[in-house]
């Protein structure tokens, strides 16, 4: 178990160096403002960490846009704030040179691609709803429903303030399998292909019918039955070997929203 906890801790500590740059067209000062560097936790969301960035850049944009919503793009791709930062990095910038350079925008909000994010409450409600969805898949929502409002708050504050112990003291209840014979009903996962399009989500049980634990290999075969080519599954910035059991993955490698966010990269390397 010590090693399992080690995995959780290491995953939690995962951070990314990000370099924020203001969009050239929006600069209204004589000289472009300096880039802003920040270490951001992989498991967090951008709206939770970009307060300083906004404060830094807001001085350099036109006064008319001070009240506008801030948004980010990487190489022209607007970044969805409701994905965890680590997922965004794995999805779009897995093999780029660090630090990860993002462009900050205040104007021309891409209404068709991004959701509006007025405040942290919006992020919180999105996070909680995802959490509930995951629990519904795992325990038919029973654990989440028996929790108190205080526990929900603790989960959110643990994530927001980057407190591993605070978060996991509640989250371990969600990962508990003692009431269901050591297995979840279904594995909450989302699979993202690097090309554009919505993620893939299916009902997949952690064990086969003859109660053999399913491996990542089985999951990939289930999702892509007709692709024979080798695929590369990436999560938390690492390539996974395909013989990891799904149950263990779900318990230990899920993001704070209790979903496994897996990126599929065609194995060209």
């Amino acid at each position, binding site marked *: 178990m010590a090693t399992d906890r080690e995995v959780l801790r290491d995953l939690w500590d*995962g951070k990314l160096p990000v370099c924020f740059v203001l969009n050239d067209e929006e600069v209204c000062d004589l000289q472009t403002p300096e880039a802003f560097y920040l270490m951001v936790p992989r498991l967090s969301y951008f709206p939770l960490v970009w307060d300083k960035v906004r404060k830094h850049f807001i001085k350099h944009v036109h006064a008319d846009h001070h009240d506008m919503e801030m948004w980010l793009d990487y190489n022209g791709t607007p970044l969805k704030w409701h994905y965890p930062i680590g997922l965004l990095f794995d999805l779009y910038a897995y093999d780029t040179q660090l630090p990860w350079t993002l462009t900050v925008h205040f104007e021309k909000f891409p209404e068709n691609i991004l959701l509006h994010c007025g405040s942290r409450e919006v992020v919180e409600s999105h996070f909680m709803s995802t959490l509930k969805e995951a629990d519904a898949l795992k325990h038919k929502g029973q654990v989440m429903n028996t929790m108190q409002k205080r526990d929900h708050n603790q989960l959110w504050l643990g994530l927001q303030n980057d407190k591993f112990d605070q978060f996991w003291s509640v989250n371990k209840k969600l990962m508990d399998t003692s009431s269901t014979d050591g297995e979840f009903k279904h594995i909450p996962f989302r699979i993202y292909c690097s090309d554009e399009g919505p993620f893939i989500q299916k009902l997949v049980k952690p064990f086969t019918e003859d109660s053999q634990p399913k491996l990542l290999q089985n999951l990939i075969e289930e999702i892509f039955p007709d692709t024979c080519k080798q695929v590369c599954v990436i999560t938390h910035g690492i390539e996974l070997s395909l013989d990891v059991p799904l149950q263990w993955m779900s318990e230990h490698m899920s993001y704070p929203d209790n979903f496994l966010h897996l990126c599929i990269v065609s194995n060209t390397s």
Partner: protein
Amino acid sequence: MNVNNDNRPFDWKNDIIFRVQQRNKLQCFCYQDLINSHNRLFDQANALKSENIQLEIQLERLRKEGPEGHKSVDGNADVRTATNEQLLVLEQKLLARQEELTEIHKKRGENAQMIVDLKNALSEKDKLITVKDKVLTENITLIASLKAEIQMYETNHQRLQDQYQLLQDEHQALQLTASKLEEKLRKTQDENMELVERLKRYKFKDAEKMNQENENFIRKRNEKMQKELEDAAKDMRGLSPDSFRDCGPISFSPNAIPTKHYLHFDAHDGEVNAVKWSPVDRLFATGGADRKVKLWDISKGSIESKGLLVGSSAGVMSVDFDSTGTSIVAASNDLASRVWTVNDQRLRTEKSLNLCQIFQENFANALMSNNTYCYGLTIRTSD
């Protein structure tokens, strides 16, 4: 990485831990210190910048104060700074006072403006009040005049009512007299009826008397005729019987019985209903079914029309002259009798009363018994 995989081929858990640690080493640790120090430097730079700005401001201020401070140089730096500070405080106070003053001035201006506005409003209101007063007085005079009018009308009304009362009284009095008069009228009418009745009676008596007279007259004529006839018979006895034989057993004197007509003429279009001799002249009147009465003269030996008496609206059944021969009366089938004067041949009276008819009928009956009527278009008159 591949090397690691080879070293631990199937231990996926250790592999993951290793990879995660590797990742953290690569992505995290090598940048963490760098970025942290960068952030620190960034913050420091920002802090220094703001400090710099503050210092500049201070410097500026000191420069301003510099010359002032130099004036009051007494050699004692402490005193100078103290006075400077005092000066600063006083200046600030002064500034505050000035601000207050300007504020007060502004307020005063506002108040003055307000006063002016209020004055304007007051004068407007005054104007309004005067206008209203005027209207009020007008209305009062109007009311007074209307009251006077009402008074006048009331007196008028009173007078008219009095008059009306008077007229009603008069009317009543008149009605009383009228009813009295009506009663009188009824009485007089009754009287009149009585008188008419009496008149009728008298007339009837009159008629009877006339009938008697006529009868007498006829009887006398008959007697005369009989006498004449007797005389004639006596004469005949004086004649020789031979002469009687020559003449035949029955012979009449040509004087006694007319054998040929003396004149012959058409008198009327239609039947001739009545003829009558005038008692004075050689005149006679005829009445016919053509509703006319005609006067004829035979004094010259030939027939000559003397006049045409019109007025009857039906066939004339009987005519007669009065005893003096000046008037002529005709009875007609239209239930009326008419009287004309002979001289000017004008209608004098027309009676359709029963009384007259009765009279006329009696009169006519008396006549009919004496005259021969000829129902033809010719009339014969003996010579």
